[in-house]
């Protein structure tokens, strides 16, 4: 569809007159209410995201040959202990120096920039695998990545942290881990299970249920 430029630089659809400045402002003020604004509710990702959300290189934040590349892998289980075949996970983390990268390129790996973001759909057996770098430690000394989980049946996605623990290394501790009951703390640990490989299973419900997180914020 042909487009023309509007006064505010936004493309206008053909057939639409460009907005005047006053009209633009009126449009922008359309959103009713004053802050804090009430959030938009979640809805399940459903079963049919597979043709839309996964992208080439999504699970590979770095190539397998990159120095320091590690595997973060696991299986997603439901409340019956069965693997979940239609989940998708996202990973968000700092780089090896603990820096948060604010660079585009997460959907275009050919650019070769480590952006700290990855997305991996599980396979039919519920397994997933990211290739990434070990995130640098935060002030507490803990190294962790943030993971989100989406699936059919989850009305709202779940968020957790995967704390990396190398073989022979002491378990990390920080403000969150201290607040979690000792018998559930292990669900937050991505333990080394081989050379440059860490395992992190996600149990949505039941025995060994993963600790999921919620964050205070404006309502």
């Amino acid at each position: 569809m042909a487009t023309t430029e509007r006064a505010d630089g936004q493309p206008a659809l053909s057939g639409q007159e460009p907005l005047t400045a006053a009209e633009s402002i009126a449009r922008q003020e359309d959103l009713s209410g004053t802050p804090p604004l009430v959030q938009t509710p979640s809805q399940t990702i459903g079963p049919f995201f597979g043709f839309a959300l996964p992208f080439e290189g999504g699970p590979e934040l770095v190539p397998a040959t990159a120095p320091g590349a590690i595997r973060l892998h696991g299986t997603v289980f439901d409340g019956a202990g069965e693997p979940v075949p239609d989940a998708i996970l996202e990973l968000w983390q700092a780089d090896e120096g603990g820096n948060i990268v604010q660079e585009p390129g997460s959907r275009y790996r050919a650019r070769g920039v480590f952006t700290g973001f990855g997305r991996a759909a599980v396979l039919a057996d519920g397994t997933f695998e990211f290739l990434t770098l070990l995130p640098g430690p935060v002030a507490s000394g803990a190294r962790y990545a943030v993971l989100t989980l989406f699936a059919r049946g989850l009305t709202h996605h779940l968020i957790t942290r995967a704390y990396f623990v190398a073989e022979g290394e002491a378990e990390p501790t920080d403000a969150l881990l201290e607040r979690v009951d000792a018998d559930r703390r292990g669900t937050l640990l991505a333990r080394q299970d081989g050379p440059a490989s860490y395992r992190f299973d996600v149990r949505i419900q039941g025995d060994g249920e993963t600790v999921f997180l919620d964050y205070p914020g404006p309502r």
Partner: protein
Amino acid sequence: MPDEATQAEITAEIREVERRTGESGRAVRHPLRDYAPYRSSILRHPTHELIKVDPEEIERTAPTFGHVDVDPYESDLTVQHPADPLGERIIVTGRVLDGDGRPVRNQLLEVWQANASGRYIHKRDQHPAPLDPNFTGVGRTLTGDDGSYTFVTIKPGPYPWKNHRNAWRPAHIHFSLFGNAFTHRLVTQMYFPGDPLFALDPIYQSIPEQAARDRLIATYDHDLTVPEIATGYRWDIVLTGSTATWMEDEHGDH
């Protein structure tokens, strides 16, 4: 094995949960995670309370996307094939803001949907309605400096699913959004005004508050409608992250 509950039984369950939630006095602005009328949620919700945590720096930031990640033509779902797709061409536009009213700028917004017949291109969609060789049903865009976005697409059809006997989803477009913080991440669905299937749908109804459900329904806006081309819908989105289902006094220790 498909659930053989009737629509009347599912509707009764929906109304019962709604009544109980209303009595609890909680502000419930997101769907319930444990929502039996939506059968797939039964084994896919945590039974422990979520642990409330103050976000650290990584959680207060979000991935960055740019024009290297999204082509401008991806926001028009009607131009991805040699010919025009079948169905009712629509424009969907709106703004993405955070809870403080700040625009969510230059952030990735992804959409996916069924075609005009209610059929997804996804290989596991078994609905015996025709695929449209001229419609994939996937779009992407980056929000503008004012948080605005615009898609051109086809109005999706309603479609049957196996939750219960004669279950049909209201017409919807799936949206995936990144906010100003990773904890603001949101995946949701946009609906169209006046859909007769709203009251029957356990996914839409998984949000117990009517005012919150209404936030998922776009507004028909004749000022957006382009003569001879497409009808226009407006839908604004607010990303704040917190599930906001806590009791008032639960904020005490933060």
